[in-house]
């Protein structure tokens, strides 16, 4: 398991989520646990709590996981997914208030250097002020 913070990308569109994840992989490299999910369970645009939970699981790191979301439901479903995590994991997952693509690359870059979860979140959110 990587010691670096993991990144999860949640979009209403599986294409957007996968594309953002591809950018992180190609720009940042392989040192960061990374997972994405997108699309409604029955197909079409949407997000699913179950898919988010499984993405968190596959990007899991003991250093924590930073989630990047796109619109409304992606955030509320991510919050719900975090609430449903086991007690010992819940406090190590944060949702970044940042644009999904740019935020994922910034957070991934920060994570690849071994930074803490809080530092990773701050770097993604620094975008809003930049």
């Amino acid at each position, binding site marked *: 398991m990587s010691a670096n913070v993991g990144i999860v990308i949640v979009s209403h569109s599986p294409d957007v989520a996968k594309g953002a994840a591809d950018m992180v992989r190609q720009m*940042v490299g392989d040192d960061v646990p990374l997972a994405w999910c997108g699309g409604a369970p029955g197909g079409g645009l949407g997000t699913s709590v179950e898919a988010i939970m499984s993405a968190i699981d596959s990007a899991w790191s003991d250093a924590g996981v930073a989630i990047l979301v796109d619109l409304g439901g992606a955030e509320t479903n991510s919050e719900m997914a975090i609430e449903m995590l086991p007690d010992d994991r819940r406090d190590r997952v944060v949702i970044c208030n940042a644009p999904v693509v740019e935020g994922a*690359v*910034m957070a991934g*870059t920060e994570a*690849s*250097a*071994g930074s803490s979860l809080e530092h990773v979140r701050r*770097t993604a959110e620094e975008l809003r002020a*930049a």
Partner: protein
Amino acid sequence: MSQTAQSTVVIEHEVGLHARPSVKLTQLAKSFAAKIEIATRPDGPWIDAKSIVKVMGSKTPKGALLHVRAQGDDAEAAVRSIVALVERDFEAAI
């Protein structure tokens, strides 16, 4: 022993210090303990080379002079490594 080091290099990369080069520079900078700053003018403003948001936000174009300075125990190695990264056009070290 704390050192200070400074150097200047020309950005030859086709798109300048944009997304991918910025990520590489930041990742390399973060591998050193020294405080590392870059600037496009010798009188600044100097920005933190370990901040991906600031480095990417600098939008340093192709042909620009990049000034690199560092302070700390590994400052000389840090500046040397960053200059080398820019000189090899941000490709991985061989």
